[in-house]
């Protein structure tokens, strides 16, 4: 019961006391009416929309009238009790109509909620005491999904309550790691409001944690909860810097937004620009007052290196790519990012062996799923055993129209890959689209995780990204969208 509901109940009980005809005191009626006025005004100006206001308002009034009717009945004033009872029913009827209207119009029935995901074997009753402590109520988020159909979605609950208590409630729920897999604010995703939606002549200024001047144009960072990840990373110290090797067309290592995070490597020039773009997504120095942001907060977590396996035209041979993988592994790369590939009935043995070599050396290998809008089962190197395959999603977090699907692969993940802003040679910036752009976003996050816990294995890293990833509409085709904040939290919690 929230405070406004309590006020309403007290107000109607005071009014009932007065109208019962016994112990009449004008001050009682005055107090009741005053409290009622305060309660109604508080509800009306609580900031919710039409339905979010009228549903709780009439529910409060209805329940209070029924309580008052019960009190009047006890006091044997049946005629007045009957009036209160009928008015109470009418109010609840209006609240019910509001609820039906909200559902029919697709409006949310509550103003704010949390998404709570339990483990596959856990029951909501086990966390009910915590929810009760905060006056929260709950319902299944996806009631049509059975445990057999999806053991994750079936265990997701919407938790309603006082938004002011959400922070404390979230913390309390997270302490119950035995039952709670995840808890997050069920916020409306408005990633990139169209310019036309702003009033003419008005500019929408948004404050960011990062001081990188182009950060407002990076919708992908928001989609993977990069800003929240930065808030976590800002006070943290990595165990060591992790090395993310970009196997591509080389990297312009002197670019203003990556040079202080660029490590010794064979490919410090880029005649094409593709490799530099990928490098910026994986490790552009963040909060340096220049260019864009990645997950590499102040350049303290990730060192980027470049291996030029592709020529200026963007193509390379199996040998040049296998050699780059081996070189990167021998140089101690923590993560190897490959935004490249081709199709073959079975992946070429040389590349399988090179990837196996890198995995045995302790590297985590990520590769693009491909851009042909088809099943990536025959697309290598993303289909090689042990490789994390990365598909692309768009601004609506749907499969990018070009992205291959990766449901048939063993380690699928998704990341933003449409209109991604990053670096291009000679201190320039541009947007590009492709699964090439999604892959270094995952690689950069893997680098941050390795920087926090250098003992993290490739398998553990994938499991963390999968378990903490965000399920979206197309996740059955492209995997879960990585969630940087949740992944970093998971690694931090296990340290």
């Amino acid at each position, binding site marked *: 019961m929230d405070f406004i509901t309590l006020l309403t109940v007290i107000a109607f009980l005071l009014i009932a006391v007065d109208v019962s005809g016994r112990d009449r005191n004008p001050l009682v009626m005055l107090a009741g009416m005053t409290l009622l006025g305060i309660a109604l005004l508080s509800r009306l100006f609580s900031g919710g929309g039409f339905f979010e206001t009228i549903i709780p308002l009439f529910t409060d009034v209805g329940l209070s009238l029924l309580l008052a009717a019960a009190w009047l009945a006890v006091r044997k004033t049946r005629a007045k009790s009957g009036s209160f009872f009928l008015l109470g029913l009418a109010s609840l009827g209006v609240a019910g109509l509001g609820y039906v209207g909200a559902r029919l119009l697709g409006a949310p029935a509550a103003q704010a909620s949390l998404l709570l995901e339990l483990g596959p074997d856990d029951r909501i009753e086990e966390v009910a005491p915590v929810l009760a402590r905060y006056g929260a109520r709950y319902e299944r988020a996806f009631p049509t999904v059975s445990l057999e159909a999806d053991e994750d979605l079936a265990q997701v609950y919407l938790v309603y309550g006082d938004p002011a208590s959400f922070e404390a409630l979230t913390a309390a729920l997270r302490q119950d790691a035995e039952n709670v897999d995840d808890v997050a604010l069920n916020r409306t995703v408005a990633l990139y409001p169209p310019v036309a939606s702003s009033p003419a002549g008005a500019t929408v200024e948004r404050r960011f944690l990062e001081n990188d001047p182009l950060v407002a144009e990076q919708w992908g960072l928001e989609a993977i909860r990069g800003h929240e990840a930065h808030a976590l990373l800002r006070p943290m110290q990595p165990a060591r810097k992790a090395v993310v090797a970009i196997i*591509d*067309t080389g990297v312009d290592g002197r670019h203003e937004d990556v040079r202080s995070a660029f490590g010794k490597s064979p490919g410090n020039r880029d005649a094409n*620009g*593709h490799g530099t*773009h990928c490098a910026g997504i994986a490790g552009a120095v963040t909060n340096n007052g220049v260019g864009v942001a990645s997950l590499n907060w102040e350049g303290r977590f990730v060192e980027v290196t470049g291996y030029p396996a*592709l020529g200026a*035209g*963007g*193509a*390379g*041979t*199996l040998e040049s*790519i296998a050699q780059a993988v081996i070189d990167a592994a021998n140089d101690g790369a923590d993560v190897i990012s490959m*935004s*490249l*590939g*081709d*199709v073959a009935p079975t992946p070429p043995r040389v590349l399988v062996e090179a990837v196996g070599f890198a995995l045995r050396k302790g590297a985590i290998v990520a590769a*693009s799923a*491909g*851009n*042909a809008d088809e099943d990536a089962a025959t*697309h290598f190197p993303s289909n090689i055993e042990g490789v994390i395959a990365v598909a692309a999603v768009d601004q609506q977090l749907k499969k990018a129209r*070009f992205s*291959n699907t990766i449901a048939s692969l063993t380690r699928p993940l998704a990341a933003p890959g449409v209109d991604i802003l990053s670096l291009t040679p000679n201190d320039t910036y541009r947007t*590009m*689209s*492709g*699964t*090439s752009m999604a892959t270094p976003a995952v690689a950069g996050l893997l680098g941050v995780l390795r920087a926090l816990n250098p003992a993290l294995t490739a398998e553990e890293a994938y499991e963390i990204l999968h378990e903490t990833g965000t399920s979206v509409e197309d996740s059955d085709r492209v995997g879960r969208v990585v969630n940087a904040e949740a992944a970093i939290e998971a690694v931090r919690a296990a340290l």
Partner: protein
Amino acid sequence: MKITGTIVYQDIEGGFWGLAGDDGRKYLPVEGLPAAFQVEGRRVEADLEPADVLSFRMWGRAVRVVAIKPL
């Protein structure tokens, strides 16, 4: 191999020209197309040979264009 198909522009990976074959396959000219054929929707007949390369474009079968003419 000889194919007939349509020139298509792909606005991904920085942008490139490809061939959508009438056989339902996608062909990626790894060395690009002559400027005169960089026209969206142009119908062509092309003599292609496989190019054993990997590319960051990751779209279609990598080929080299031996000859190409408009239809």
